[in-house]
């Protein structure tokens, strides 16, 4: 039985369709990266997943339980870090964690949890005085109360500095090692890339693609960018490069040529040799395909 099963989920707000016929399954113990530009429907999906919002059609099951019918038991097994949450300004950090522990009937030590998110020194401060990053770390501590089977992190890196982001990655890995399923939504690809086993990319409410990260990179990417700097760029040279096998795009910028081509040694050498033959080549650089490119390739709206 998968940890998360989203079946044909559609959610409309009036005439706006936020999520359309979304089906997705996440296995237990998996770290799933849920990617998409802002407004793609990630948060709406999560809101339905946790019974905050009712779907227009379709539904979600967590650990085989319908999220609406078994709302409380589903949330009892989940730890949440939700986008747009706010702390209780008049409660201290420790009181927040104690409240989560009491509500979940968990046995955690609040101070230990706060230490794990580096808030031990601020445990008695009221959360109303916290910076965005501190509040975010507090919310992470509350999310991992009671060793939940599922962690839902919606845009968890918002407001975190690089140290905070690393802390979050460590926590996600530790939770995954413990056997928890992690559903990690973000529009920042490097964050997802660093932790996810598998990703799904959402655009305009539809799931565009889903699969293991390396597969997506070779499937949609496998391309590289070469940048050449020359003394002088001639039209003849441009035409020659354009005609080479494996080259997909060429454009110039002053004395630079930017080339998109297949990411293999043969193609790159062919391009470099062609340029070198003109005796005008000054310098060159390559830029490997990143998940960013996959993301752009999938989510860019074609003109």
């Amino acid at each position, binding site marked *: 039985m998968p940890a998360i099963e989203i079946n044909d989920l559609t959610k409309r707000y009036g005439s706006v369709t936020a999520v359309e016929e979304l089906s997705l399954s996440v296995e237990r113990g998996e770290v799933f990266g849920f990617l998409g530009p802002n407004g793609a429907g990630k948060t709406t999906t999560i809101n339905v997943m946790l019974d905050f*919002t009712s779907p227009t059609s379709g539904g979600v099951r967590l650990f085989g339980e319908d999220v609406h019918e078994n*709302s*409380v*038991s589903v949330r009892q097994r989940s730890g949440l870090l939700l986008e*747009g*949450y*706010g702390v209780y300004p*008049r409660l201290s950090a420790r009181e927040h964690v104690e409240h989560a522990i009491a*509500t*979940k009937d968990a046995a955690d030590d609040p101070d230990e949890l706060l230490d794990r998110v580096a808030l031990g020194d601020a445990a008695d401060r009221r959360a109303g005085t916290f910076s965005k990053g501190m509040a975010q770390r507090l919310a992470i501590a509350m999310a991992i109360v009671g060793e939940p089977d599922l962690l839902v992190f919606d845009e968890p890196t918002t407001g975190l500095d690089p140290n905070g982001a690393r802390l979050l990655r460590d926590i996600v890995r530790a939770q995954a090692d413990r056997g928890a399923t992690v559903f990690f939504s973000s529009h920042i690809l490097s964050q997802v890339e660093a932790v996810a086993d598998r990703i799904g990319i959402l655009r305009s409410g539809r799931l565009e693609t889903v699969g293991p990260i390396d597969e997506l990179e070779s499937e949609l990417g496998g391309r590289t960018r070469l940048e050449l700097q020359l003394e002088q760029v001639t039209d003849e040279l441009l035409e020659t490069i354009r005609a080479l096998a494996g080259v997909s795009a060429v454009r110039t910028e002053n004395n630079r040529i930017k080339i998109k081509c297949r990411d293999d040694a043969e193609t790159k050498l062919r391009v470099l040799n062609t340029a070198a033959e003109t005796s005008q080549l000054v310098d060159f650089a390559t830029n490997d395909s990143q998940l960013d490119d996959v993301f752009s390739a999938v989510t860019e709206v074609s003109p």
Partner: protein
Amino acid sequence: MTVEDVLRRDLTSVYRSRTGAAVAAITALSTVVIIGLIGIAPSSVVGLVGGLLIVGILLALVFLGDPKLIAITAVLFTGFAIGLVLVLSWPLLFQPLAFRPSMDTAVVGVGSLLSLTIPVVALLSSYATIIGERNSGSIRFLVGLPNSRSDAFVGKFISRSLVVVIPLVLGLLLAGIIVELTYQSGSFLSMLGLAAVSIPYALVFVGLGLTASTYGNSIYQVVAIVVAALATLRIGWTAIRFLLVWDTNPPHPEWFYWIASLNPFNAYITLTSQFTTTNAHHPLLGYPSDRIFVDGTVQIISNTETIAKTPAVAAVVLLGWMVITPLFGYFQFKKADLL
């Protein structure tokens, strides 16, 4: 038990905000402070000093954010008011007991004052309950932790009710002690009775604020709903009823009294009147008195006898409002798309 967790968390937050202090200050002012002032001074002095006192406390509530400062300011102004009353009414203080204020003054005075201030403090304590958490985003903790919607709503309702009921009961108990000791035929039990009918009355408005808080999509909408509901109940209701009998003379038909008796303000006034010694017609009642004084004797000008005017009906009406008002909010909260 998550109702308890929601309740404890919510109470802590309210008592650290200015809401708890504001509710306590206004409630104390309209119970024990006013009873104390009436107890030591003639009514004209009380009116004067009471006005000063109210201005002082309102300034504290508007300009001070810290609950401790509000409490300190309220206590200081109360001390100042008592001192001023003592100075102004010094010669009267040593009069024999016959000149003491009567029990009826206490019941009618405090009852009338509470009929206005209870709705204010109850709405103040409850109108932001849900919309406030939606605005700040903390509702994601409220509904993200394993609380059912019912637990969350009930926990919140109990919390905000306690915020109002605790100072109200304490204030009336202290007022009762003062009344018993210094008022003419003063009765502690009557003040206790006043407290007993004030609790459901307060819960009606806690429920109203909570319901408005679940329906509105912004704090402005919620305030608009609350103001509209108050105006309808307090002014609109009376206006419509009087318009219906505009050009008719008493005795009025029975339905006229039924319309009046279904109003929660009226139900509360009817019930508080039960604790006066003379059972006189209360000036705030929503229908005219059946009796008038002509040359020192009571004349019956209208003899519409209807159970609509009885305290039993008033009790049923008040309890009905108390149960139904929060139920609207409850069902809305259960099904709403909260995020």
